[in-house]
């Protein structure tokens, strides 16, 4: 820990300040840094080659691929619908708007396992809607990739809305009005004026929801079941490996998931720093 040198002008050492700093930093070090380092250390302990072999084993590789593509699909849908929701909430007044605004935050409050159960209660093969979709579209929702995407959409719904909404609210509409007087069509106004202003928060909302989705477990484990090569995601795979005490497989997949998620979070940080500089 960096010790602070006391300037000559202050006669006493700021014990309170140093104490709080020490408390905060040791807490973060013990609770965050050490556990995360232990996983990386364990994952890399058998060497890079073993790690790579473990992750590219057919069953692990397919779980990782499924996780990545369902998360990507979720991020795209979430981007479009989150942007639309934020736009409607900021620009329009309509009955039920306060309720809609409150519903956006519900996924933050609902435990993820309960989310999974809710989706099974609605789209499950024995349920009315689930059966109807299966009969008319021939598509299973539960125990299949669409269920995973739905679960991820539910859990991460606030991310894009809450990231775009404040920026849209602060946006000076004078520019849009000016464009409108110059006979610009509404699509042109959105495309050329509104969208560039919210591009960055939209992207960071999408990326954060992607990073969050990589590790999602509670909502998925019920909705997706645990069918290798079909509906087993990376987190569910790690759970299986831990249960069967396969340390190598569990550590390798954990490291892969954390590397992906951390890079995405770092990218968001970089984009936001660049955005602030202008």
């Amino acid at each position, binding site marked *: 820990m*960096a010790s*602070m040198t006391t300037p000559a002008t202050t006669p006493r050492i700021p014990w*309170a300040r140093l104490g*709080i700093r020490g*408390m*905060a*930093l040791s*807490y*973060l070090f013990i*609770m*965050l840094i*050490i*556990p995360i380092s*232990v996983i990386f250390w364990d994952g890399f302990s058998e060497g890079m080659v073993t790690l790579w072999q473990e992750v590219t084993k057919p069953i692990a590789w397919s779980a990782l691929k499924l996780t990545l593509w369902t998360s990507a699909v979720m991020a795209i849908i979430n981007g479009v619908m989150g942007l*639309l*929701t934020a*736009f409607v*909430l900021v620009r*329009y007044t309509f009955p*039920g708007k306060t309720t*809609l*605004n409150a*519903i*956006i935050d*519900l996924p*933050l*409050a*609902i*435990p993820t*396992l*309960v989310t999974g*159960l*809710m989706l099974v209660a*609605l*789209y499950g093969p024995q349920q009315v*809607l689930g059966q109807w979709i299966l009969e008319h579209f021939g598509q299973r929702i539960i125990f299949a990739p669409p269920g995973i995407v*739905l679960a991820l959409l*539910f859990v991460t*719904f606030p991310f894009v809305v809450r990231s775009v909404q404040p920026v849209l*609210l602060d946006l000076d*509409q004078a520019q*849009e009005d000016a464009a409108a007087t110059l006979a610009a069509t*509404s699509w042109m106004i959105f495309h050329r004026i509104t969208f560039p202003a919210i591009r960055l928060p939209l992207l960071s909302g999408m990326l*954060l929801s992607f990073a*969050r989705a*990589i*590790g999602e477990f*509670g909502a998925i484990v*019920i909705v997706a079941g645990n069918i290798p090569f079909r509906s087993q995601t*990376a*987190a569910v795979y*790690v*759970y299986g490996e*831990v249960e069967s005490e396969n340390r190598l497989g569990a*550590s390798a997949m*954990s490291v892969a*998931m*954390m590397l992906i998620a*951390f890079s995405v979070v770092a990218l968001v*940080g970089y984009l936001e720093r660049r955005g602030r500089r202008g």
Partner: protein
Amino acid sequence: MATITTVVRGRPSTRSSVWRRRLLIGVVALYVGLLIVAPLVALVRGAFLEGAAAMWQVINQPGVWRAFWQTLQIGVVVVVVHTVFGTAVAWVFVRDDFRGKWLLNAIMDLPFAVSPVVVGYMLILIFGRRGLLAPLLAAWDIQVVFALPGMVLATLFVTMPFMVRVLVPVLEAFDVRQEQAAATLGAGGWFTFRRVTFPALRWGFVYGITLTFARALGEFGAVLVVGGGIQGRTETVPIYIFRALDERMYTGAYSAALLLGLFSILLILGTDWLRRRRQE
């Protein structure tokens, strides 16, 4: 969360803009309805399918009460620890300055990006039978994995950022001059905190605590992995729901999920409502 007020601007509304407006609102309402509201309704229906009496019967069992009690215990401990240390971290964030502080900002959000399963697994690697600290734990006869301490640690990790992320903006908005004024008038550090700083941060604390508590009650993956989900010993409410579903006790699963979900929702919405009413 912040209330959003709209400023209605007078741009001439044409016929096509009215229809576009209706279409966009309709699409959003349909999306939110199908994604969030309909599943919620389905859960309520599932819980009440066999009647309220059957619901009470499955809930009113020693095992289920035990799960609720255990969940509550974990939640309370986690809230207390995060209130103390989270406040310290938030304070360091806003007021303190030292070399390498930017790193703090970077690592604070990491728990959001770590899978709950991996969190549980980390703790097994450290405290497990063949973990790093195994000899030490054996010598002192402390059980962390497959016991309450491990479940508390897992929940602590998962809920780490909430308190800090809620407190930092409140602390940033707080005017330091108020503290300085108190100091000039001869107030000591603790007195200033109790009479000046804390009242200003009160709603930040309340919101941070409810958010942390709600998330702690609902944590599943991390607690399952580190606790092992041993029936009657390390079973929390989410783990009970998971087992009930596995054993095809649907009414039990739906009822417990409804109870847990409603409690979390009321906690969050209630705090939000209280705070808004105070502000008005």
